[in-house]
């Protein structure tokens, strides 16, 4: 799914500009716990759906090779986060939808999870 479609489905804003609209997103992962994103987000090129907007989300995104981040429920990154995202070439989007709606709408349009479930627990 292209970032352009994700933007349209969620009435989202491309915070880092429109240069990456054709970027292909392979999977999705939703978490406010960055520990979980680091542990479970398999493979490069995933979309992280999160309400976490501090700079550590970009450092974590960089480590796991995320394709893009969408901030949910109207959250907006501060200047430091935005600057880091631009430096690390990680596209940022923002939507007013809550996390559940964001996931549901993307799933309905065919985006699937990085992993369906964990091995234990």
């Amino acid at each position, binding site marked *: 799914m292209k970032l352009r479609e994700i933007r349209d489905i969620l009435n989202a804003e491309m915070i880092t500009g429109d240069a990456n609209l054709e970027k292909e997103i392979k999977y999705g992962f939703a978490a406010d716990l960055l*520990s979980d994103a*680091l*542990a479970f987000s398999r493979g*490069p090129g995933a979309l992280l759906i999160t309400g976490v907007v501090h*700079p*550590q989300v970009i*450092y974590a995104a960089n*480590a796991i*090779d995320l394709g893009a981040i969408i901030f949910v429920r109207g959250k907006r990154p501060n200047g430091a986060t935005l600057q880091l995202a631009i430096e690390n070439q990680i596209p940022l989007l923002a939507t007013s939808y809550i996390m559940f709606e964001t996931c549901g709408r993307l799933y309905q349009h065919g985006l699937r999870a990085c992993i369906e479930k964990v091995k234990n627990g």
Partner: protein
Amino acid sequence: MAEAGNDIRFHEMFHIEGGNFTNAGSISSQVKKILKGAGFSGKVIRRTSIAAFEAEMNVICYANQGNLSLFITPNFLKVVVEDEGIGIPDVNVAMREGYSTANEKIRELGFGAGMGLSNIKKNTDEMILTSEFRQGTHLEFVIYLSGQDKG
């Protein structure tokens, strides 16, 4: 005599300040940049970056200060993280997924879920963790450069 495949071709050490969350994650970001510049495969870079990120966060969250060293050899990458601080009373307990002593500040940032050490183990080929309680912790991990095609 050391085998040629284990010769250190590159070494860099980064200082980590405990309790300073402002730039938490920036050292693993620098490690990633070095590995990218050296032309390693995406998988090797990703595994090393994730493990380095977790290790860096651990020093910031739990120690007074520490150093993270990156070594590049022809056959493997090695990262050594040494810190001074509270240490880990029982390393085996700390390795369990979900075990955490994180405070509210750490959890507010989205960390401290007790996944870090097991995530380091998952992303590396060799991992050694030792600790002296109330003194510090020594962590080493190795990522092989061959046989990284799967996954």
